């Protein structure tokens, strides 16, 4: 039926115009719509959470909120200054522990290990660690540091909170460092070694600076992730209604403040919990945006 003789007439009959009623075009449209719908559903929680937090908490924004202590139950006014400071301190402690250890571990995996059994064990361990629930990290540090009162006979402390968060940050930092360094072209290492650089100089002067972007991005994201954690802090840093007294005392943090205040029967505290959620979400959002900025910025 498709004989060569009939072809010219066929092409005359069939128009080249698109016919929306054809089954293939209908299916096409249907699945495009479906994919779009799911994409919207994916970002919906983010938009809703942000909007809800902004509406509930954003209206409370004021200088006193950021600088004052929370009020005693039954009182009004006050702020969450101690919790903001506490979150910054605990995150800083966590970063100071996790960055050197994580970057160092990543360097070992990417630059020194010769794909031996130990390296694959460390890589596997890192993957497992990243899957450990954060509450387990909290209980672990509780048992290791808080219950044993290892630091100056203090139980709950900012240090313990920082250590718990650093355990959560470690796998991300190790992995991003390892993968970032693996992306550095081998020729660059050869070049440095070819002009007589030692392995240490090659890593510190050539490979690490080249892989700066992915490593810095990973670090910032891991800090942002840890800053919002609650479970590990409940067991370790506890909470304090006062300004931080030192690294070896219990310390307030925004996430634990939300946890504590949101279930209180006082309207002021519940409102403060919303305001804290807003501040915390904004902080994490800003850090994520900063991570993207770090990722895009170009050093020669």
């Amino acid at each position, binding site marked *: 039926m498709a004989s060569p003789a009939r072809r010219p007439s066929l092409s005359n009959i069939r128009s080249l115009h698109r016919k929306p009623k054809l089954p293939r075009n209908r299916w096409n449209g249907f699945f495009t719509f479906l994919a779009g719908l799911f994409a919207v559903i994916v970002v919906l929680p983010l938009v809703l959470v942000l909007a809800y937090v902004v509406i509930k908490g954003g209206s409370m924004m004021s200088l006193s909120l950021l600088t004052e202590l929370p009020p005693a139950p039954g009182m009004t006014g006050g702020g969450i200054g101690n919790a903001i400071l506490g979150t910054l301190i605990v995150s800083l402690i966590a970063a100071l522990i996790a960055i050197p250890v994580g970057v160092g571990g990543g360097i070992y995996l990417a630059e020194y290990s010769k794909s031996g059994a130990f390296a694959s064990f460390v890589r596997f361990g890192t993957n497992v660690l990243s899957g450990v629930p954060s509450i387990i990290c909290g209980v672990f540090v509780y048992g290791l540091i808080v219950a044993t009162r290892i630091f100056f006979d203090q139980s709950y402390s900012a240090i313990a909170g920082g250590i718990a968060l650093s355990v959560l940050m470690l796998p991300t930092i190790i992995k991003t460092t390892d993968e970032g360094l693996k992306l550095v072209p081998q020729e660059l290492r050869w070049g440095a*070694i*070819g*002009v007589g*650089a030692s392995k240490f100089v090659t890593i510190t*002067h050539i490979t690490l600076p080249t892989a700066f972007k992915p490593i810095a991005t990973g670090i910032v994201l891991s800090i942002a992730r840890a800053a919002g954690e609650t479970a590990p802090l409940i067991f370790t840093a506890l909470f304090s209604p006062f300004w931080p007294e030192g690294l070896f005392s219990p310390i307030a943090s925004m996430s634990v403040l939300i946890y504590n205040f949101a279930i209180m029967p006082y309207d002021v505290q519940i409102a403060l919990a919303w305001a804290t959620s807003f501040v915390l979400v904004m902080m994490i959002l800003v850090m994520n945006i900063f991570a993207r900025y770090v990722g895009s910025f170009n050093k020669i």
Partner: protein
Amino acid sequence: MTTSLNTASNARPTAPAADACLSLQDVSISYGNGKNIAVNHVFMEIPKGKVTAFIGPSGCGKSTVLRALNRMNDLIEGCTLSGRVLFDGHDLYDRRVDPVEVRRRIGMVFQKPNPFPKSIYENIAFGARINGFRGDMDELVESSLRKAALWDEAKDKLKESGFSLSGGQQQRLCIARTIAVEPEVILMDEPCSALDPISTLKIEETMHELKKTFTIVIVTHNMQQATRVSDLTGFFNVTSLPDLDGKVGCLEEFGETERIFNSPAQQATQDYVSGRFG
């Protein structure tokens, strides 16, 4: 392999010539902890102040031999070497030798231009600085760039990234970077294979200048290049040995470039240089 023992260059394998810079004595290199022998029983005397070219078909081990000359093969897992490589009479593979020190005296330029992600100036200053250079860095950068014939093109953008240069310029930057360390020998692993003919020509001109100060060993696939730049040529070939699995590289013939190309002693060399195989 037995035939290669008869060639002139291999007549006295244990007594290095007075002007020999690098001397390979019965060098065999294998990968995978001795499983795959890449190149077998190489005897060779590389003289000082000359350009020596390694030619041969792919897989004949010429790059492997080149990388053995400044212990670059140390970076490859499971790569082992037997025999001796003498540099000014010192065994490079002696237990006490520091490979970092070896690479400072025997520099290397790679196949693909690999400038550091730094400025042009820093690319050159890097090697000198880590080698404890205490002098006028500006002057060193200028003289290195001049020797690599890159000064005129790069002098106005020393602060720009090394990647802002073209491929040929990048390769000359890599040569300048190697010169800045002031090595005695420069090894070049197919330095022009990623470049266009004009850049290649410029690099060859650079090499003519460089051989006044440095001993150069170059691996090339381009036979015209070997005839243009080298004083001596080593022809590597692939053979299958009856008692070994797979193919093994060996040095088929080594001598004056002119002789290798015009009246080679080996049939295989004749076939290769006249383009009959490889």
